[in-house]
């Protein structure tokens, strides 16, 4: 713990000497000790040696499932750009379901529960140990505005794999992949949409939620309006009906040897049914005509092209990704800069993501002493949990006390959006708030209970079974209040735990918690700390 005390000393020195002094800052960074919190002087500089602990941790809140001791060190060593480039080159972690997820007896409680719980358990495991952190965060961002859920146990993990395989490719490829995902075909019923009996569900939502949106947008995401100020709508009901025709005639790649619980053959894209199931008339969608007599596949390709090339798609998709990764209420200029990359790169999502993370607006608050007013997002419960797991160096999913499902106590089930509108409305504004903060709508009493209840839900056994390393925390309890606080600060507060929390922790350790076990001290306190606004905001 000597290092920590030394760092504290340096911090005070930094305050005395003025943190704007580049020389001081660099000398602190090069000394490679923990907690060079004020080390980021020019916020968007990518000179590795200038990246402070705070800045690197904050970047990893945006670009990964939460910082770890190792990932912070890596970002500080190589810089943002090299870290992103390396991440972009990594292969996708896939869910790889075991056979019992494909094949189980639907009306047997034991096997079907085991099968249906698996996706959630695997999801958190991937967030803890997957090397492709950036890809996973982007996939999660995409899932939030292109969700599919329900169905058999195999539907959810298979759908996430379709996203994972395409989340850093082009938007065309992504849109085509999710359209042909059997999980999506089931969820929004396009696998039932045929020439004679249409089903409009997918055709409507792919336009409304996944690509162009309901209202016409400028490149900066602002809404185009008529003379009376009413938003101009992007499409009409006729467009929906025409798109339904263009999307007709797809079905599962059915194989009679598959188990009943994988009748969707969910890991394999849908295929055209008999040509008679496809409506091959000419269609006019969003002003563009698709000629008659195209095949099922050709119509899909034409339709996707119309969506990707629509002027709304670049700002619409850019804003959704920015909102999930960096900030809920991005400035028009930020959206515009990213949307331009979307257009110029021909919808290459890897370039779009890179532009999002390196933008001046994303990096503006890297200096903890110069916070900007609007940037940031409230962490959704899943991000709270993954950040917690990574801060505790977990290697697998933390199961709940009764081992039923680790989703207990998280408050949000991954790859299981309640509706096609996802977990939150991207336009959500709390009453009288001036700021659009979607995840604010997930803050409620049960979320506070989940966080503060950590000490009741976690056991040492379950944490150790998940490979979490609680030893340093238990050791810090034995050492001193200050050491424990310093460790909390490093792992969960980017090295800058606010004074009010420090005081609260000290008070509780000295009074209410004085006779508790070291484990209880750590996890009762951690529950309180992750409820704070400092931890709760990216």
């Amino acid at each position, binding site marked *: 713990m000597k290092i920590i005390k030394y760092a504290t000393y340096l911090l005070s020195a930094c305050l005395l000497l003025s943190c704007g002094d580049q020389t001081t800052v660099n000398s602190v960074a090069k000394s490679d000790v923990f907690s060079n919190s004020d080390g980021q002087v020019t916020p968007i500089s990518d000179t590795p040696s200038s990246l402070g602990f705070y800045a690197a941790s904050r970047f990893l809140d945006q670009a990964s499932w939460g910082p770890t001791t190792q990932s912070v060190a890596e970002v500080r060593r190589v810089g943002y750009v090299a870290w992103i480039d390396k991440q972009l080159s990594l292969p996708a972690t896939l869910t790889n379901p075991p056979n019992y997820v494909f094949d189980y007896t*639907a*009306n047997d409680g034991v096997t079907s529960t085991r099968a249906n719980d698996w996706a959630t358990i695997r999801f958190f495991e991937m967030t803890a140990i997957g090397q492709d952190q950036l890809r996973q965060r982007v996939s999660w961002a995409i899932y939030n505005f292109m969700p599919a859920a*329900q169905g058999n146990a195999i539907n959810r993990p298979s759908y996430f794999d379709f996203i994972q395989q395409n989340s850093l490719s082009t938007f065309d490829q992504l849109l085509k992949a999710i359209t042909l995902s059997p999980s999506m075909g089931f969820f929004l*019923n396009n696998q*039932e949409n*045929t020439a004679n*009996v*249409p*089903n*409009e*569900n997918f055709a*409507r939502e792919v336009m409304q939620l996944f690509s162009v949106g*309901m209202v016409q947008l400028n490149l900066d995401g602002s*809404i185009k309006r008529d003379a009376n*100020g*009413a*938003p101009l*709508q992007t499409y009409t*009901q006729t467009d*929906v*009906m025409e798109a339904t025709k263009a999307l007709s005639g797809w079905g599962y790649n059915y194989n009679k040897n598959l188990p009943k619980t994988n009748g969707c053959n969910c890991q394999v894209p849908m295929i055209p049914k008999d040509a008679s199931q496809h409506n091959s008339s000419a269609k006019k969608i969003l002003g563009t005509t698709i000629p008659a007599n195209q095949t099922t596949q050709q119509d899909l390709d034409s339709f996707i092209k119309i969506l990707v090339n629509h002027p709304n798609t670049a700002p619409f998709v850019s804003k959704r990704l920015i909102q999930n990764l960096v*900030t809920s209420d991005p400035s028009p200029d930020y959206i515009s800069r990213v949307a331009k990359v979307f257009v110029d790169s021909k919808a290459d999502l890897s370039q779009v993501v890179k532009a999002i993370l390196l933008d001046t607006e994303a990096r503006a608050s890297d200096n903890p002493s110069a*916070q900007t*007013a*609007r940037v*940031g*997002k*409230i962490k959704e419960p899943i991000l709270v949990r993954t950040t917690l797991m990574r801060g505790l160096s977990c290697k697998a999913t933390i199961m709940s006390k009764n081992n039923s499902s680790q989703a207990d106590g998280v408050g949000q089930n991954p790859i299981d959006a309640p*509706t096609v*509108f996802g977990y939150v409305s991207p*336009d*959500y504004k*709390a*009453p*009288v*708030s001036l*700021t659009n903060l979607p995840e*604010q*709508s*997930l*803050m*409620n*009493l*049960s979320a*506070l*209970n989940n966080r*503060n209840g950590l*000490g009741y839900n976690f056991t040492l056994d379950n944490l150790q079974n998940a490979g979490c390393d609680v030893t340093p925390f238990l050791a810090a309890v034995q050492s001193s209040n200050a050491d424990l606080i310093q460790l909390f600060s490093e792992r969960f507060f980017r090295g800058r735990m*606010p004074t*009010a*929390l420090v005081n*609260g922790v000290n*008070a*509780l350790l000295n009074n*209410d918690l004085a006779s508790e076990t070291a484990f209880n001290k750590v996890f*009762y306190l951690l529950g*309180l700390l992750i*409820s704070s*606004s400092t931890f709760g*905001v990216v």
Partner: protein
Amino acid sequence: MDRRAFINRLLVAGGLGTGSAITFNSTLAAGTNLTGYKALVSIHLNGGCDGNDVIVPTDSAYADYSKSRPNVALKKDALTLLSGSFLGHTMGLNPALKSLVPLFNAGKLGALVNVGPLVKPTTAQEVLAGTAKLPPFLYSHPEQTALVNGWMGDQDPSGWGGRAMETMDPSSVFKSPLLSINNNQSTLVLGQRSKIITASSYPSTNIGRANLLDPKNQWTQILDSLSRFQSPNQVSAEYARTFKGIFADAQELALAAQKVPEPSGFGASSISRQLAMVSRLVSYYKTTGATRQIYSLQWGSFDTHTNQRGVSDLPLGQDTQLSDLAEALVSFQAALDQSGLSNDVALLVTTEFGRTLGEASGLGSDHAWGNHWLVMGNAIKGAQMYGSKFPSLVLGGADDAHPQKRGYWVPQISSDQVAADFLTWLGLPSSALTAVLPNLSNFTNKSIGFMGV
């Protein structure tokens, strides 16, 4: 009207603006003198609950119905018959709603036939000819959910409940006027300056180690201090503000739950749990000085593009959920009767849109427009179906506004007219109705007339 214009009008109405505010001022002063206690409970059925299978004619029109949706239609002999005739038809209810019949016959339950959002009175012919003035974003779930609850467009997210309460109570002296259960995203109770209380259907005395009923508990004190965190960053500031609201509400709701135990008779379904909590809250708030309250509940998963009648496993069909709804409504009314609050509480069941009478592939239906709603309570003039006609159930028939003849009904009752009846009952002066419900000015009839005195 945009947000600013509305606020200006409110200011004028409250006598705070400049100009000729006298007429508004005198009527609105009455609002502050409201006495006693009244509450409106609104249950929104998420996803568009198909009214075509809620109320079904059992006379010759049944053949039209079954011909239009041969694979989805309820069997005629399965329907629960209502005695008497309504809008020129004998009628049956979906059998899942059978337990509501005694309430209907007792005059405590009524139906509103073919309701939905409208800008002005509109006909199917106008829609087909392209000459109708349509509400924005028809057929989209979130926008229609917002619209039937009084949304005024992207410049003003507030709903009719929130606006009405702020108009009735310009100085914000009412205790806890706007509440939602398990949900922070209700348009109905969103005003322009009011806090919404979000209650859980599972009240809790503790948050972690903090005992909310013990202000001396160290954890309670620290949570209290966390809720007062200040930050120059708006995101952190909003987090802390939300935290503060949750914490304060949790303290009051823990107290309410302690003072009012759960009445007997409620089932285990999610909607029963929600209404059980509401029945406790109305008792608590009435006795602790609340004047007017609006509760917003959103429940269910009725977007039955496929498997509308349900299958053995997921997705949940319409009938199982309607059965849960009926059970919850019966328990709720019984609880109100028992606690002596049945004259004070009225209930409305809405949904965002109807569904195509013509089937969608996979035994379901697609998004449509007009639909049937339910109203309940002692204050309701029940045992009736309101509206001037029941839509013709012929695809491509006189009432079908779908260009491909799949069966959309253009509403004959505007959601604003429904709101006006409830708001008048709550005490909103008639002179303030069009300020709260701007499109109501396009309707000659400002009232449907389903509320008793």
